[in-house]
């Protein structure tokens, strides 16, 4: 089976960029700020592939570049260079060569995103159901009754009380807001879902229920996912393969079990040791 996503050489540099940027930053230099020009190397030469239905983990501390990777793939940011091929049924798209309209189409129809901050993923000015309706309307579902039905199915599936469907998500708890975000992301049954620190800041019991939900969805719908987190527990539970990032570079990658049992890099060893 061909990978659903092939990412090669993905690089994102904030600032003026000079020839030294890549040579003078990274884990061996202990910085992602170029000493020559002051540019920030958020991600450099990130390459990986993702199989349909697979969950890939990207782990690292804040500033490691892990969020940058999903933000470029979801078109929130443009990469400085690199390529990403998305295979959708029998079509394949070179994501960074698409025009703005094509990118927005993929975003609205074929990708889902769940942000750490629900403010970014949800419109608090409208109801929880309205948030889901908007995504369904983008997909040309134009029947009010069907939209109501589908929105309540999705909220039921993500354990949000349907009786609260017509309230603004502003009034919801953090865990519930994440469930609404997940329901919204799943509305179009996308083959690819990005999850950016979705459980960070939530109570442990709430975290556990959301992680269960994500696993169930993967089993039911076969959705491929990229899970970005600094939390080893999330990686352990969800991801079959993992990339470890530091200062914008992938420093270690492989099967999650292997990385957790036998980390090769000193940094990964330290991460694993600190949580065991």
């Amino acid at each position: 089976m061909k990978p659903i996503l092939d990412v090669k050489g993905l690089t994102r540099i904030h600032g003026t960029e000079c020839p030294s940027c890549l040579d003078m930053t990274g884990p061996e230099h202990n910085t992602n700020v170029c000493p020559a020009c002051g540019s920030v190397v958020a991600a450099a030469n990130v390459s990986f592939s993702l199989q349909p239905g697979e969950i890939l983990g990207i782990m690292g501390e804040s500033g490691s570049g892990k969020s940058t990777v999903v933000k470029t793939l979801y078109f929130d940011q443009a990469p400085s260079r690199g390529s990403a091929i998305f295979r959708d049924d029998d079509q394949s798209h070179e994501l960074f060569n698409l025009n703005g309209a094509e990118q927005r189409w993929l975003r609205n129809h074929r990708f889902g995103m769940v942000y750490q901050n629900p403010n970014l993923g949800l419109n608090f000015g409208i109801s929880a159901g309205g948030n889901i309706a908007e995504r369904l309307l983008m997909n040309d579902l134009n029947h009010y009754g069907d939209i109501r039905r589908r929105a309540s199915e999705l909220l039921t599936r993500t354990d949000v009380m349907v009786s609260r469907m017509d309230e603004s998500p502003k009034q919801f708890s953090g865990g519930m807001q994440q469930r609404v975000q997940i329901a919204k992301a799943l509305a179009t049954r996308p083959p690819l879902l990005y999850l950016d620190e979705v459980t960070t800041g939530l109570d442990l019991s709430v975290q556990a229920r959301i992680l269960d939900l994500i696993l169930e969805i993967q089993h039911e719908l076969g959705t491929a996912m990229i899970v970005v987190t600094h939390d080893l527990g999330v990686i352990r539970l969800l991801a079959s393969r993992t990339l470890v990032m530091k200062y914008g570079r992938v420093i270690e990658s492989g099967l999650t079990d292997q990385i957790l049992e036998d980390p090769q890099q000193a940094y990964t060893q330290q991460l694993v040791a600190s949580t065991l």
Partner: protein
Amino acid sequence: MGYVAIKGGEKAIDGAAEALEALRAGGPVSGSEPLSLNAIEHQLRLLTSRIMSEGGLYHPQLAALAIKQMQGDTLEAGFALRAYRSTKPRLLETPPQDTGNMRLIRRISSAFRDIPGGQMLGPTHDYALRLMRFELAEESPEPFRKMASTFLKNAPEESLPDSFPKVLDALRSERLLPPKAEHRNPAFDITRDPLIFPVSRSAALATMARAETGSMLAIAYSNMRGYGDIHPTVAELRVGYLPVMLPHPVTGELTEAGEVLMTECEVIAMYEPDDTESARGAAPEFTLGYGACFGHNETKAISMAILDRALQKGMRDGPENPSEDPEFVLMHIDGVDSMGFANHYKMPHYVTFQSDMDRLRSTREKYQARGETPQEETHES
């Protein structure tokens, strides 16, 4: 039921015009003399200035007429000038004019104590005490005329300088400011092309040059107070007569066709990090804001210079404050647009209000059908 007349609009309009005209003449009790255009143009010179600049037409006599006709309403007077201008074709375009050639009546710099050519305070209210001068209430004509005619009479011709070097040139020679652009794109003509965002700086400057003074001051002031951080220093503010150079219709040679009174303001703001491609590797420099308008209107020129600087920042990095957002600023500073629309609410809206009532009634019927009574009806009185 009674039949409601649907005639009468024409008569009402004629009546309104008559009443307006009677009040323009001072009404039945004032005993006023008609205002002369000469008095308006010269004695209410700041008002005339403002009307020419907001009307976008340099024509002091027409501006004075507009003020007289509109009974002193600045928005209406500027509007009348604009509407007059709509009937005139554009015959010629001037090349860029050099304000270094201005014949100045006032120029100051707050950046340096001394500037080449010197500071010249000129006619300004800046340091005048705003005390009511009751003697002006009853002014006799002779001393009034004498004041005007004897001013500068004893000043030797050679002590009256013609033009002054620009303060910014000194900073440019020290490389503290970016050099003047070598290549200029043709100026954007807002009277011939619509603003389609994002717009060029030229389009923004043209829009501001004929904007309503108060509207522009309000948005610029928001930036000064903290909804923005330009922190400007006035490098130079100059007021004077700019010779208008036009290509001669036969020879093509630049020829002076006349002069216009203008106010120009250049502000300097602090340097800041610049991530754009073109700035790569360049040393930091001060940044500039530019304001200029017809007539003598310093508040407007300063506001415009600050907004120009704020908008350049917003165009480059994305707006962080209203004053840095080109669409927000440029769409809300035109006096003709905003005043017209505010006043249009006085026109009949019977049909749309009928629609509004229909929606409210249907919605209330549904409330009642569901057994919920709209709130105000449950109040005990």
